[in-house]
């Protein structure tokens, strides 16, 4: 028989907060880029980039040094079972941040490569972000994260993506909600100021529970020379 511990316990074993996790992801990416540049080279495919990043994130020593006491699991492929019972594998690229065993709360980061083209931005939105909206990820959870990997400056891609999502017809398709200030794009991020470029909010009317989800948008550049405008804290707000 397990029941929830009282709040008094939360100060003894506090969980990592989402801003801590996001900062940890950005700092680990920067460490990989300066130490093992090939591991995060833009020429790699998304599952390879995700796998390499996740391996570094999962390193126990690094986790403990950053006080991020949770598991990172790369889901670089998924299983689907067809009506006839056969199972197939499909490539995908996401990392789950998990506290404890399967079934405990988790936080999903979905990765997409962005080469500056419109088609890459379309995939980011309609073959990535939409998975949170349609309930493929994070059902019952209030937060998730989209990570765009770019060869250009992170800030430039963040600005372009914010404009792309805010396009009226796209905002409708992605079930975008406005924030308290009436904006579709919340910048700077309210949830993770130092690691997320901006936040977006999305209705999920087809799900149960149907509470909306807030998505953090994180941009990681594979080119240190192009990434000069990321500040020391990992901040990457899009330019106005």
């Amino acid at each position: 028989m397990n029941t929830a511990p009282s709040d008094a316990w939360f100060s003894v074993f506090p969980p990592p907060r989402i801003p801590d996790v996001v900062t940890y992801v950005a700092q680990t990416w920067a460490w990989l880029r300066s130490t093992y540049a090939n591991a995060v080279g833009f020429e790699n495919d998304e599952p390879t980039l995700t796998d390499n990043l996740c391996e570094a994130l999962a390193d126990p020593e690094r986790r403990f040094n950053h006080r991020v006491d949770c598991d990172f699991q790369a889901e670089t492929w998924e299983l689907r079972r067809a009506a006839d019972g056969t199972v197939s594998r499909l490539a995908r690229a996401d990392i789950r941040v998990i506290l404890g065993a399967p079934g405990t709360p988790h936080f999903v980061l979905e990765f997409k490569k962005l080469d500056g083209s419109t088609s890459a931005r379309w995939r980011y939105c309609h073959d990535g972000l939409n998975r949170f909206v349609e309930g493929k990820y994070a059902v019952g959870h209030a937060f998730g994260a989209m990570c765009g990997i770019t060869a250009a400056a992170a800030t430039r891609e963040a600005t372009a993506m914010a404009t792309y999502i805010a396009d009226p017809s796209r905002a409708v398709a992605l079930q975008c909600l406005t924030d308290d200030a009436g904006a579709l794009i919340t910048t700077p991020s309210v949830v993770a100021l130092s690691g997320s470029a901006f936040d977006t909010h999305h209705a999920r009317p087809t799900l149960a529970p149907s509470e909306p989800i807030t998505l953090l948008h994180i941009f990681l550049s594979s080119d240190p020379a192009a990434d000069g405008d990321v500040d020391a804290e990992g901040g990457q707000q899009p330019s106005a």
Partner: protein
Amino acid sequence: MIDLAEEQVDYWAPKADVSLALGRLALHPSDQKLLSVHDIYAKPHLLISAYWGEQRDLDLLRRLQRFGTLAQTMAGRPEPWVSGKGFHAPNLSNRSRSLGPLEALAFLPADRMPRDYPVIASDVQLDQVKDHFYIVASPGGKNARLYHGPRVILPDGLTEEYGIRAAYTHEAFAFTSSIGAIGGGPDDEALLKFLAAYLRSPVATYLLILTGYSVIQPQNYARLATPLLHRPASREVGTYVKVLARALETHRRHSGGHGGLNVDAVVDGNGGFFGAVRISLSGENNDRATLVRSEEAFHALLMDVEAAFESQLDRTERDALFKIPNAMVVAGDAFYFLKPMRRRFWLARAALADADLIARTVQAAAWKKLTS
């Protein structure tokens, strides 16, 4: 199409020890694991690993696998290593052949494998193959390559302590198919010696138990009564308490938490079947770990647990009826474990798993509150 990303398997691996002791089907909570279908599909050995292993064991396996495997090392050497079995004695299924390359070789019977010594050196006294066989079914040893040069040989089966009886040699001799060998080039002599030592080590036994399909089956009913089923000594319970307190302190430090904890193990003299552990907030900064051996204290603790059960009875899970009633109980500001007085539940590794469970339970509850 059904997405299996979220599908989970409730994996129960009850051990005969407690079931037999209680005379009914019983499942200890530490033998209940929740595994994802995704992980089982990717790593079929997970069902074996999770049989005895805790999350820490699975994490260690995952980390070790990143360093590569023996097979990868064998294939990656400048002169790739080969592995294989010895020659097959004549049998009815295969055509008999002449000794061929075995004609001039010495012969090591399986029962001459050294029991304790890890090397077969030049002083070994051996007969010739032709003293025992005049025909064979096949020469084996990957076409006799494994009868010469630096190599590790290992017979089928394990020692009583689940060890591998590996030995290093560079003497020329052949052996039958009940012995296997891994051989490499002359430049890899030192590495092959290391392999023999590694295979004989407790590390290899540990990995075998966690990944080998048939290693841990008891040979007969009498062998179910392993030392793990014995009553823990007071010293062992004391060690459990210390390790639990230390592991909780480590979790608190790694997560940046604060606040003292009291860890008390309470056992009912020398005769009780159960012992209990209470982990509570001290309200101070200091930690305290104690072992209390008192019938009175044990019953007082049981009263606390019983009160917790009564107040939360409506939340009792139906399947809890089929488990030993020692699931972790959270009551007020304390966690309780009720444990059978069997060594398996009072080992240092059990203390680490219990500390992990407490920290994860608290963190998951806090995370859920923060993010939902």
